[in-house]
């Protein structure tokens, strides 16, 4: 339910904030094959984590398994954010990647379970996203003023 709601919110915000200032553009959607590959990877990861928890009888991923899972998840998430930052040339995603890596390292040092470490990483990512997002939005609003409807006939 979260995805349709967030999609509607994003569209509402774009219609009122970005489209009147820097315009509207629609890019071709990703092919069904590429979307399928992304969904398959997410499914495999989700099932893998759930299976590991059940088969290893360690629901919270505590101890050595938890540390390994924390390092793997923190590293993977930080790497994904860094790649996105590089592709989009957006410095604030590098900051997000660093924050996630820092959160994972801190959780590791504190000996938190995997579930606890995930909570720390998401909290850290959420906080840095809100702060950097607000700064970016303020800069965008300062730089771009709403344009009127075109004269084009």
């Amino acid at each position, binding site marked *: 339910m979260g995805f349709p709601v967030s999609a509607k919110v994003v569209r509402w915000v774009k219609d009122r904030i970005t489209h009147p200032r820097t*315009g*509207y*553009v*629609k890019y*071709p959607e990703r092919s069904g094959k590429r979307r399928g590959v992304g969904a398959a990877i997410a499914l495999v990861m989700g099932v893998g984590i759930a299976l590991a928890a059940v088969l290893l009888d360690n629901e919270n991923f505590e101890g050595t398994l938890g540390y390994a899972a924390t390092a793997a998840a923190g590293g993977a998430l930080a790497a994904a954010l860094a790649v996105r930052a590089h592709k989009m040339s957006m410095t604030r995603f590098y900051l997000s990647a660093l924050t996630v890596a820092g959160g994972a390292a801190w959780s590791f040092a504190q000996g938190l379970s995997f579930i606890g470490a995930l909570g720390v990483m998401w909290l850290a990512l959420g906080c840095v996203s809100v702060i950097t997002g607000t700064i970016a939005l303020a800069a965008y609003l300062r730089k771009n003023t709403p344009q009127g409807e075109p*004269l084009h006939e």
Partner: protein
Amino acid sequence: MSDFGFAVDPNRMIHEPARLKIMAVLSVADEADFTYLMHETELTRGNLSVQMSRLEEAGYLKISKRFVGKTPRTTASITSAGRAAFVEYRRYFTSLLNATDKK
């Protein structure tokens, strides 16, 4: 025969810098509105409007108007003829620039 392919001229409808910018932006998008094109091409409102009309007359752009809520939105998209012409234009210059690499 010229190594550079000068026997054929580039498509002058696309070759004009303002129109080239519009075609380049729209070649990677399904559609874009007037504000976005103005922002990306850095053309003035009047110039963008004139060049869009020329591209539309040439059959390279399709321009539509619709309302989003109470706000009018003018969008442009590249037609199949426009896409084919842009691909040909790219091919022309790619082969020309490649020829300069070999010299």
